[in-house]
């Protein structure tokens, strides 16, 4: 069974589509997370394939279904953006052969295919639908939601894995060479780190609205606090130290005005969800969380990097699309869990949503108010990537757990968790989901 990439037609990427035809008919009913690690230790039992199998099995168990009831699998086959297996590096065949391999020896080590997963999970006897939602868990989620809604699959696993290898992220490959091909050089020759583009937008934002980087501190400190309340997360598991405002402000720059804590830490981790129809979910083990809408942005920068103006236009459009398709307004949001992989762009997502009435230019002032999980305006209750490491899925897990009442110490208490929104990654370009406690 060859696995196809999800066609763009599955995305809701324009305004004017009206309410999503499957609003309230698709549910999340199971969650599974692997343990986390900073880097791969080279062992078979901790390879990304093993972590993926672990998360998938946990999601199945959490949902209370038997594996043979699963008929679909949607995943992102990519498992990194910056830790690549360097060409020529020997592949550990003992690890490859500890599993049932595919034709690609890096399958299960530095990537994941549906074929590899099905070969190594013999209990999944009835999977007849597989699809790739490439890039992020956010895309896998919207792909799976649309697929279940369209009847392509009834009980569907949704997976994202991240591997991390020895060495520094993004420092290998072309960046380690003495020359660069001409086309690539146009955008890469000046040595911008990954967070540069966001830092540039943030600098323009501060200049335009009269703000400053120190105003980010309460948001990052709040996210780190929430992350330490996320037992599945990296910092809770390995580095349970809180971050103070002083720590944040004193941190070294990466691409000023982005400092160390504005950049997420690459880790190894996987997460899986089980989606099914609202009808099927009525009698299941966990309280179903209803998907009210999904929306996607395919917008690209006009030139080398998005400007603040382009970002603000696109996040506003994303907000409008989300509300239109879910049939809600910003006033209906209990909380928001928009992406924070570079903390400096979380505000652009939040302002685009108009969360709690926050307009463009007001988010940093909003951060100085009570944004805690105990307060009336919970911002990023998941803690996001800042709080738990670079996975781009803590936000989604938290949305589901908050609405189910299973967020543990992280459960928001100042408001009732009824409708939340998550997604990313970038303010321009990403996939977003609205989650609800009821289908209505």
């Amino acid at each position: 069974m060859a696995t196809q990439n999800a066609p763009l037609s599955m995305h809701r990427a324009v305004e004017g589509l009206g309410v999503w035809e499957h609003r309230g008919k698709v549910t999340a009913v199971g969650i599974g997370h692997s343990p986390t690690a900073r880097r791969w230790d080279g062992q078979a039992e901790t390879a990304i394939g093993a972590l993926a199998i672990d998360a998938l099995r946990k999601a199945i168990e959490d949902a209370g279904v038997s594996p043979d009831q699963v008929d679909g699998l949607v995943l992102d086959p990519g498992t990194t953006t910056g830790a690549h297996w360097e060409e020529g590096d020997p592949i550990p065949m003992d690890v490859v052969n500890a599993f049932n391999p595919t034709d690609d020896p890096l399958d299960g080590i530095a990537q994941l295919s549906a074929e590899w997963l099905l070969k190594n999970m013999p209990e999944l006897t009835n999977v007849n639908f597989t699809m790739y939602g490439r890039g992020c868990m956010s895309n896998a989620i919207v792909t799976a939601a649309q697929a279940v809604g369209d009847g392509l699959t009834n009980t569907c696993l949704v997976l994202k894995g991240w591997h991390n290898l020895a060495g520094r992220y993004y420092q290998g490959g072309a960046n380690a060479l003495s020359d660069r091909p001409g086309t690539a050089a146009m955008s890469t020759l000046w040595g911008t780190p990954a967070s540069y583009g966001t830092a540039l937008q943030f600098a323009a934002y501060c200049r335009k609205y009269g703000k400053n980087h120190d105003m980010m501190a309460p948001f990052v400190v709040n996210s780190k606090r929430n992350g330490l309340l996320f037992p599945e997360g990296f910092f809770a598991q390995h580095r349970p130290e809180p971050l103070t405002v002083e720590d944040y402000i004193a941190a070294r720059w990466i691409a000023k005005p982005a400092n160390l804590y504005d950049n997420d830490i690459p880790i190894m981790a996987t997460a899986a969800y089980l989606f099914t129809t609202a009808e099927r979910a009525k009698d299941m083990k966990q309280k179903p969380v209803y998907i009210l809408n999904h929306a996607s942005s395919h917008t690209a920068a006009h030139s080398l990097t998005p400007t603040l103006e382009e970002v603000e236009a696109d996040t506003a459009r994303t907000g409008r699309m989300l509300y239109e398709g879910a049939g809600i307004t910003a006033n209906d949001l209990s909380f928001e869990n928009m992406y924070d992989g570079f903390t400096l762009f979380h505000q652009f997502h939040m302002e685009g949503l108009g969360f709690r009435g926050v307009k463009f230019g007001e988010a940093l002032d909003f951060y100085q108010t009570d944004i805690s999980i105990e307060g009336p305006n919970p911002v990023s209750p998941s803690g996001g990537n800042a709080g738990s490491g670079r996975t781009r899925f803590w936000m989604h897990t938290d949305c589901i757990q908050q609405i189910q009442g299973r967020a543990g110490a992280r459960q928001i208490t100042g408001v009732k968790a009824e409708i939340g929104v998550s997604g990313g990654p970038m303010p321009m370009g990403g996939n977003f989901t609205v989650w609800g406690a009821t289908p209505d």
Partner: protein
Amino acid sequence: MPKQSVVADELTKPYYDACNEGRLVIQGCKTCGNLQHPAARACKQCGGSDMEWKPVSGRGKIYEYGVVHDCPIKELQADQPFNVAVITLEEDSRIQFYSHLPGVPVDEVPVGATVQVDMETTPNGQKVPEWRVVS
């Protein structure tokens, strides 16, 4: 500040040949008139493939900047921290170039200032656009 050497490829050879002659050109679409940078096989606006290289004045403005303290490119790490500014072109302010802004002290970039292209030679002799503040 030495950069990586640039090896022109088939798509960008006209661009880099012009750089070697001290001229700045960018891609223009013959079908819809869109200007674009970086170069691509097709027009990002209309999808057409009938592209040409159009001369531009080499004047622009500084849109904004960041200061790189932790650079992923090995060749540049000895020079960090350094400025990286985004320059917008006079002919079309949506067109951007990156610049290390030679001559401008680190973190003292005059946002909004006018700049002029000033070709810089990379280690293998290939020139690339850099930009100098003129006002």
